[in-house]
């Protein structure tokens, strides 16, 4: 069975800082990493392959040429194959156009059993690409998956986290799931994996290589447009409550009673 993992390269937010003078994000020297949720997706794909004792894990990303580094990292963890979808025509895509292009990439990869995505990317935080991709591939999906209970030849049973518990959902394969942090602990790359990843060929597919309508890719294919970006005002002044623990608690309690 082919398992496809979609991953996104994102700026490492642990290093993103706000410039206090211009009130803008300082991205200089900020490293790029695999979106944290996608690490769980890669790990889950590897575990499923290992438990099946057969199959192939392919990692797929759409992004600028630099995103190749993230695919290589996934290969070093143990993924079998990586493909980068990169073209000027894909740039500026919103979640619909991103899912459209990814769907074309998945179609070109051939028959698959399962697509795994992270719950959301930490830069955009939309959580929309997974379900949108499922729709465009015409397969069932489950979001917020915290556990794969079982996987047999033609179906997968997963636990999906809800606000007050979880649901057990059975999906006929092929299907798509988006996974949470709770699902596993991603492995570290092995030395052997790193060596292999270093030498691996990562094909780059552009618009000519995919069965896509350019008008539906990238910015041109994005129904939504960002018209304004601004930094939220941070005029917040922290009122420090002084005194002994008892005194502090007294003042805070009386303030809280005003709010609640």
């Amino acid at each position, binding site marked *: 069975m082919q398992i496809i993992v979609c991953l996104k390269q994102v700026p490492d937010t642990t290093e993103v800082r706000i410039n206090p003078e211009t009130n803008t994000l300082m991205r200089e020297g900020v490293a790029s990493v695999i979106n944290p949720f996608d690490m769980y997706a890669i790990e889950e794909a590897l575990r499923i392959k290992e438990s099946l004792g057969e199959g192939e894990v392919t990692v797929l990303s759409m992004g600028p040429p630099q995103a190749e580094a993230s695919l290589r990292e996934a290969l070093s963890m143990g993924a079998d194959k990586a493909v980068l979808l990169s073209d000027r025509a894909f740039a500026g895509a919103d979640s619909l156009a991103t899912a459209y292009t990814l769907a074309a990439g998945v179609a070109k990869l051939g028959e698959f059993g399962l697509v795994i995505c992270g719950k959301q990317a930490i830069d955009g935080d939309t959580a929309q690409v997974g379900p949108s991709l499922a729709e465009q591939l015409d397969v069932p999906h489950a979001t917020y998956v915290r556990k794969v209970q079982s996987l047999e030849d033609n179906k997968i049973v997963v636990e999906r986290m809800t606000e007050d518990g*979880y649901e057990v959902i059975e999906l006929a394969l092929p299907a798509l799931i988006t996974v949470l942090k709770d699902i596993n602990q991603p492995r570290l790359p092995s030395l052997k994996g790193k060596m292999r990843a270093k030498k691996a060929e990562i094909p780059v597919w552009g618009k000519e290589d995919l069965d896509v309508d350019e008008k539906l890719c990238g910015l041109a294919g994005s129904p939504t447009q960002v018209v304004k970006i601004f930094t939220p005002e941070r005029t917040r002044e922290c009122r420090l409550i002084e005194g002994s623990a008892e005194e502090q608690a007294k003042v805070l309690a009386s303030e809280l009673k005003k709010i609640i």
Partner: protein
Amino acid sequence: MGGIKVDLDLCTGCSVCADHCPFGAIEVKDDKAVITDICTICGACIDSCSFGALSREAEEAASPVPDSSGVWVFAEQIGGAIAPVVYELLGEARKLAESTGSEVGAVLFGSSMQDAANDLIAYGADRVYLLDDAIFADYHDELYAAALADLIQEEKPEIMLLGATTIGRSLAPRVAARVGTGLTADCTGLAVNPETGLLEQTRPAFGGNIMATIICPRHRPQMATVRPKVFQAAPKDPARKGEIVNLKSPEVALRSRLLERVREQAENVNLDEADIIVAGGRGLADEKGFKLLSELAEALGGAVGASRAAVDAGWISYPHQVGQTGKTVSPKLYIACGISGAIQHLAGMQSAETIVAINKNPDAPIFQVAHYGIVGDVFEVIPALIRELK
């Protein structure tokens, strides 16, 4: 395709725009700004340029906007109970409908939901599209997506709002893809621009460090998911009149099914709907610290949250985690106890209305987002606070 254009005669290569670009998409080469492929055309650079060297390229001739009218709300229900965010959406939908002079529609799928449908009218819906069928009792991605997409294509609403809940965030992208329209996630602000008539949807990105305003100019409906607790719930008016339109179930070949729905967590874990959240971090030292925290939560009638450090240490389960790899919350009151305030945690809670920080390190970043700060030992302050509240 529109893009950002650099007027090379005006550009001085000062690099101010590169500093302002939230995406790091501008490089300065040979003393001129160069827009790279990762540009999302957000326009942040245009305002930053003192020389007027940056502009948006003219769009291709716009295709006509499809006819549409009405502001719709998806009335999510779980176990027959309408989700609280629905009333907030109805309140906002009424405002938007008044500014566009249109009607408010509510879409309700479920089983034996007649009373709930009447309630939606009392809370502001002019028309309720009701699909009352036993197979719709529980949420089902394929079934609900098919029914909602069919209804949208039939009735052509101008705006479609859903709660940014587990269900809303799964259903909305599927429906948007089927209908072929745009969708904005997790909005915290909505307004109709009086000149263009377009819905301006504002949402946080980069963990709340920047805000983006997004439009959907040529596709309908303009779809958005909205975070719970952001808007005021509509007042109930039992005298309001409205119409209920009964729908037929669509015929769908289902490829997935719900085997079981389990409520497993204690009352204090529904962070999404909680007005008050008391959260703990590394400073609570162990599970016992969280027991103390639960007592405080109980005294306040709130839910218990946690930082990633506390969850990773195994002191409390993952559904309690607030922050980038956990939940994003915006309660009325957030009390952070022994949480230093790493940027990933702040991303999940900085939009709370009032933030209280209790931490022994006065330099902890949590104090930068807090309204009230107590520098002190959580094991002294929390018990004292519980006594005061009782």
